[in-house]
């Protein structure tokens, strides 16, 4: 077993923590904890990018770290918390299928994602290329979370978690996208959240609840 430098070990650890958080979000029932887990995921993401920036001497990545911290650890969770308070949401959310089955499906998806990522990570020349599989796995887990949830806010958090996974994929495969693109993506995410906030109020006004079963009337 060859010697891996300390910072690469730390990044591997953070990647594993990210995957664990994705599973935890999948199995979590309470919305408040979901938001905190999402913030924790953002923090793990920012730390891993910071370590990469430090170890590979790329100061422009620090901007990315700052952006992630401000947006995903502070701003978005704060918006979500306020939204929950105003909407007065206190659910114990039951998904479409029970939790052990969801977890098993999650494991299958993780294996699939690892398989998919293997040829790409062999082609990459970054030191963090092994974590690409984990990034893809967390994207798929977030997608699973979106499908199996029935209430609006966990679906949205799944959407944001998917974006987290994609961001991690970008950092691990290519040391981050160009700054312009990252700023654009961050702006999009923020605007999406704001629009959703308005949207939730409209839904609640109309249906008096945020259960998405009300939103399944339109068929072919």
């Amino acid at each position: 077993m060859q010697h891996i430098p300390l910072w690469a070990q730390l990044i591997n650890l953070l990647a594993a923590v990210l995957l664990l958080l994705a599973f935890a979000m999948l199995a979590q029932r309470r919305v408040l904890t979901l938001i905190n887990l999402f913030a924790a995921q953002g923090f793990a993401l920012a730390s891993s990018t910071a370590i990469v920036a430090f170890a590979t001497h790329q100061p422009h990545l620090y901007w990315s770290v700052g952006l992630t911290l401000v947006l995903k650890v502070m701003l978005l969770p704060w918006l979500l918390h306020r939204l929950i308070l105003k909407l007065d949401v206190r659910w114990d959310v039951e998904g479409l299928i029970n939790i052990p089955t969801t977890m098993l499906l999650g494991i299958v998806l993780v294996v699939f994602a690892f398989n998919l990522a293997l040829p790409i990570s062999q082609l990459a020349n970054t030191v963090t290329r092994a974590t690409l599989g984990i990034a893809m796995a967390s994207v798929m887990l977030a997608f699973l979370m979106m499908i199996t949830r029935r209430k609006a806010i966990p679906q949205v958090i799944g959407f944001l978690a998917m974006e987290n996974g994609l961001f991690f994929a970008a950092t691990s495969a290519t040391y981050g996208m160009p700054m312009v693109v990252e700023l654009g993506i961050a702006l999009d995410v923020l605007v999406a959240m704001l629009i959703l906030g308005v949207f939730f109020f409209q839904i609640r006004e109309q249906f008096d609840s945020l259960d998405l079963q009300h939103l399944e009337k339109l068929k072919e």
Partner: protein
Amino acid sequence: MIEILAVLGVPVAGAALLALVGGRARAAEINVGVCLITFAGAVALTVRVIGEGPLLIASKLFFVDSFNVFLIALTAFVGLTTSIFSRPYMRIEQELGHLTPGRLRLYHSMFQLFNFTMLLALSTNNMGLLWVAMEAATLTTVLLISLYRTPASLEAAWKYFILCGVGIAQALFGTILLYFAAEKLLGAGGNALLWTELNSVKGALEPTVLSLAFVFLLVGYGTKVGLVPLHNWLPDAHAEGPTPVSAVLSGLLLNVALYAVVRCKVLVEGSVQTSFARTLMMGFGLLSVVVASLLLLRQKDIKRLFAYSSIEHMGIITFAFGMGGPIASFAGLLHMTVHSLTKSAIFFAVGHATQKAGTQLMDGIRGLVTISPLIGWGLAVGALAILGMPPFGVFASEFLILTTAIHEQPWATPLLLGALGISFAAIFSRVQPMVFGETTVKRLPHRPAMIPVFVHLGIVLMLGLWIPPFLADWYRQAARLIG
């Protein structure tokens, strides 16, 4: 430089202005004015490209060549005609009590922002910015679809947001993979995402990565094109939003999404030397055509009917681009243009027809021609045009596509012909009683704006008979580019 500034900057300024005054009496006129200036800028850009050929503007940030210049002009033009149509339409809606001044303000400013995002997506050279613009286009229209705040419109907007959001996330992953493949050759930094640079090195890009990237990009942007099986949001969004929004969604956004797909296809084909990308596009296109034509038979709502018709036509265009070759690509480009014009004309007529009848259900609309000959004939001619009757432009492009298909993909031809036949029967049988016969509709408080309808149909007729040389030249050049 100044033209692109006009094309992009004017809508943004207009959006800001309308965010303040969009609820007042003259807002609709301001909207039309802003669109007019944008269109003028687009025309100036077009003239420049005719004269000088493909342009790289603002240190390679924007790239205007034969493929996207006519799309830019088309977008600006249809935006202009839609704003002309929306003026009386929204006024009637306001008087019927469906809209408040606040919502009208939202509508006008979002309309301009939507125009901006589409024009940005068309003119940018940076694939990452293309993604940002597509996502922004989705976001600007979410609130527009739920404008009426009915349960159905909220559901439509939610589906639209979630499905398109997930799709766009796949496209983001595809873009990341593209960047990953390009970074090795072009170095890190902004250059690796520029389409012109990617195009010049596409032969050396890693094939496995690019095929995987294309799958994600096709699924992602294909969701916004409305390809089956990712089309679920489309009928709802088109049916529940206000008609001007349906017109621009159908006429413009689908085109822009397909443009993004085709740009990616060009890159992938250069790298992966097999017909992988083509087969995928043909498969999705054919599936869309068949499924949409079958679902057309079950529709009761007029806007949903024409939304499925949009899915069908986008399927035909995707199939044409998938076949490739000079004739099929030429036909595909022509079809993009005429479909956009015809479909938006139909939606204009449908909008006023539904306002007259007070319902969107086709059973409730009868005998339009008796009360308002303009609307009745507009709808009838538009329906005939979209169904591929000669001498309209749609016939020309469908004919070219079918003959190429008989040559190169004979197995697909019976499916295409069958689907086109089914949709002809479905739409024609529905439109005929709506236009002729006993009437159930009432007069409208304001005069409907039918000029845009006939202008569009006139252009489509002209394109069916004679294509201006510069346009034909662009189509050929773009077809060569697309391959």
